[in-house]
């Protein structure tokens, strides 16, 4: 698989990549936190504000019509991107966190009660832990956790035994934001479905690294954020199977989500509008669609292949460093490398790398239980995107060696 553009052509699409940090060329390896935006996305959003700004779904006037059309076209782009069966299954939200909170609330209201169980995994981001804990507290339900191995692989045997007649929903991450592990989501869903239990997949770190086909995965919910897939921030997606979305109540009330309002009784609008109360981030949604178009035009499989090559290079280079430990060595990984160079504190290393112009993330990566599992207070995470170069990976490895020298 070949990218539709060479790396020399891709780099200028992302103007921020030519930034200098502390006087050095920026090496941006914090793509797991947020990705940079191509000019195509930036210019669509600017163009919208300059030429096509009005509220969606509200007016009979020209501009409102134009922007509503484009908003719905963006929904169609998202639908096609994840191969959902219909547009009504695509709800725009503020991001992954908002999507998970929406499901935890709405699904919880309808299906979770005293003594029921929610099953998550030990490698979840706080966003896929806390909303479920809040639900459990509200409903006196119990949170159960699927363990994983030192390599960062979920224990599927334990998973199967944790599914009980009280399990109401399984919520697992597609890809671990710390370990990079790609979880066998399709198998996890199939197993849960054998017991009639729905599954939510946190796709925040999955959507940008390859093909996601929600019909093939057969998951009941798939959620992700725009800003981690080269789109704007403040926009995200909640995919849900129509049957389920129809069955659960809305979590926010307001304009546009209603059919009829009287002081006695309100009836709700149809999908997906039932879940889109108030003025939505339509500019963000259209920007997101433009980011997805950009990736599709580049070739999503080719993007994944390039990232795998960069990951292999980073893994090899870092593994060569004595005393360095990589956290997350699952056979199926995306381009994320978490590591600690010996006893050097992640903050110290991150500070020095920053001075060299290298942006990595340090800390717990919003996954404190995972850190506890390994008995560490945090790690350094280099998360690689297709626009990173081989030279940048070499610079990271060299930078880490320099850090070790400084703290030796």
């Amino acid at each position: 698989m070949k990218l539709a553009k060479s790396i020399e052509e891709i780099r200028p699409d992302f103007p921020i990549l030519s930034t200098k940090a502390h006087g050095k060329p920026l090496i941006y390896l914090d793509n797991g936190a947020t990705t940079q935006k191509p000019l195509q996305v930036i210019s669509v959003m600017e163009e919208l504000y300059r030429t096509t700004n009005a509220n969606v779904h509200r007016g009979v006037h020209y501009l409102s019509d134009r922007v509503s059309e484009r908003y719905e076209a963006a929904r169609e782009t998202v639908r096609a991107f994840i191969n959902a069966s219909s547009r009504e299954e695509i709800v725009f939200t503020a991001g992954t966190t908002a999507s998970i909170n929406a499901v935890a609330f709405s699904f919880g209201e309808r299906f979770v009660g005293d003594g029921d169980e929610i099953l998550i995994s030990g490698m979840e981001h706080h966003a896929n832990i806390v909303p479920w804990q809040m639900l459990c507290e509200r409903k006196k339900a119990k949170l159960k956790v699927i363990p994983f191995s030192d390599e960062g692989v979920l224990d599927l045997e334990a998973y199967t035994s944790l599914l009980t007649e009280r399990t109401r929903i399984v919520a697992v991450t597609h890809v671990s934001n710390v370990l990079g592990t790609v979880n066998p989501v399709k198998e996890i869903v199939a197993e849960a479905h054998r017991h009639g239990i729905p599954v939510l997949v946190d796709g925040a770190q999955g959507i940008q690294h390859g093909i996601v086909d929600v019909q093939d995965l057969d998951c009941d919910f798939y959620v992700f954020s725009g800003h981690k897939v080269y789109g704007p921030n403040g926009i995200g997606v909640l995919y849900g199977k129509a049957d389920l979305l129809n069955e659960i109540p809305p979590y926010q009330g307001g304009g546009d989500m209603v059919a009829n309002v009287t002081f006695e009784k309100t009836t709700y609008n149809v999908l997906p509008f039932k879940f889109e109360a108030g003025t939505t981030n339509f500019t963000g949604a259209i920007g997101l669609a433009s980011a997805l178009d950009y990736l599709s035009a580049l070739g999503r499989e080719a993007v994944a292949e390039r990232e795998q090559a960069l990951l292999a290079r980073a893994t090899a280079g870092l593994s060569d460093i004595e005393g360095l430990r990589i956290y997350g060595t699952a056979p199926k990984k995306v381009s994320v490398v978490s590591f600690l160079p010996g006893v050097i504190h992640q903050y110290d290393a991150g500070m020095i790398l920053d001075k060299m112009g290298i942006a990595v993330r340090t800390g717990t990566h919003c996954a404190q239980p995972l850190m506890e599992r390994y008995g560490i207070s945090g790690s350094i995470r280099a998360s690689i995107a297709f626009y990173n170069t081989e030279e940048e990976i070499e610079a990271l490895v060299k930078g880490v060696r320099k850090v070790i020298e400084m703290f030796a």
Partner: protein
Amino acid sequence: MTINEIQDLIIEEFAQFGDWMERYEYLIDLGRLLPPFDERYKTPEYLIEGCQSKVWLFPSFENGIITFTAESDALITRGIVALLVRVFSGRTPAEIVGANIYFIEKIGLRENLSPTRSNGLLAMMKQMRLYALAYKSKQEHS
């Protein structure tokens, strides 16, 4: 020496360094030289939690003088902790409460004390002032 004289001295020390690398190497050395922290005080009560690094700060107050000992799990943070202890420890509450801290910015470490860094240092400085305020009001009411 007054607090300001010590600050000026630190600024002078840092002026001899050519680039950031030397500055940080010096900080790392300072971090290594920080006197050991009494393990008994490594408790939640004295912990200042940052999400990037942790700082422990223990005050004692005797004969009108506050003595601080401190510790961090990250070496660069510990180096800056050493500087703050050097400036603030062995002072009267009034000196600390009235202090204007300018050396951090002058030696190019301001980013380390930004609220967004969350390394515990900004909270540590606030905590030192809070202890000083508490001791000051204790003095005034005894």
